[in-house]
């Protein structure tokens, strides 16, 4: 087991093994999403307060959950790369960032659209989750901008790792503090009470499905990132030449 992980951390091995793992994540993930959306849209009963509009939850919550999970993945791999200097770790952090930004955007957009029939406006500054998600989107942008601004890859890895770690401490604080503030003064805008099983199951299925698909996307991005970082090495050269020689 440790041997497998150890070998996985070596770029050439990762490059070869990753595409074999991807289908095992993508296919079940898409199937789960398909079923989860079907059940969420047609099987789950309408909400007592929100009617059919609550069904947006089936994409909104997975997006929001993934936006935060991606950040943790980014921060943890940045830390691992910084402390143990594992190249692949930095590649994972770099590859995760755009995905995290996309999911954050999706969470914001679906949250905003959900808010329109609920609050009557496209944006509600009073809502803590929207505000803290917006902050997280900016953190992602800052991370990507910092990476882009530094030419040297090693330096960019380290600098962005520091930023990711500062954010990792801050983002939970921001998330909870904004929530705490609004709940003190404005009353909850969250859907209260336990969820019906009929409503909950598709949500869990979708969360799992989206996570698996995210895993597949991440592996593919990391693979491309690894290829880019190793582009001048011998193993890449040999691999490309032999692939060209085989006529693929």
């Amino acid at each position, binding site marked *: 087991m440790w041997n497998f992980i150890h070998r996985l951390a070596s770029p050439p091995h990762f490059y070869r093994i990753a595409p074999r793992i991807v289908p095992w994540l993508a296919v079940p993930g898409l199937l789960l999403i398909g079923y989860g959306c079907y059940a969420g849209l047609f099987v789950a009963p309408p909400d007592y307060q929100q009617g059919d509009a609550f069904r947006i939850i089936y994409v909104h919550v997975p997006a929001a959950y993934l936006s935060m999970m991606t950040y943790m993945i980014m921060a943890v791999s940045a830390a691992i790369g910084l402390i143990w200097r594992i190249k692949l770790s930095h590649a994972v952090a770099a590859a995760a960032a755009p995905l995290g930004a996309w999911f954050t955007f999706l969470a914001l957009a679906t949250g905003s659209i959900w808010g329109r029939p609920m609050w009557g406006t496209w944006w509600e500054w009073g809502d803590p989750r929207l505000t803290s998600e917006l902050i997280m989107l900016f953190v992602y942008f800052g991370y990507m901008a910092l990476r882009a601004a530094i030419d040297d890859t090693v330096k960019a890895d380290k600098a962005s790792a520091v930023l990711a770690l500062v954010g990792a401490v801050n983002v939970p604080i921001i998330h909870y503090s904004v929530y705490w503030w609004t709940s003190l003064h404005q009353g909850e805008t969250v859907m209260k009470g336990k969820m019906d099983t009929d409503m909950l199951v598709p949500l869990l299925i979708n969360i799992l499905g989206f996570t698996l698909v995210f895993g597949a996307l991440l592996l593919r991005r990391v693979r491309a990132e690894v290829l880019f970082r190793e*582009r001048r090495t011998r193993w890449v050269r040999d691999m490309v030449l032999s692939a060209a020689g085989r006529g693929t």
Partner: protein
Amino acid sequence: MSAFTMGSYGGYVWSCFAMAAVVLIICDWRARVRQRQVYRDIEVRIKALGPDNAPGEGQ
């Protein structure tokens, strides 16, 4: 059919699901494009250098 209108919330609900699908498709497409681009660039550079020109190890 009520599935389409979703009790008058149809526009909101369906646009969210559509957006989710679009985001996934974009991410998939961008991953493919990036992989292809990096690979092509390497091919081009190796052919330009000539197959007998050994590169250095790593960066």
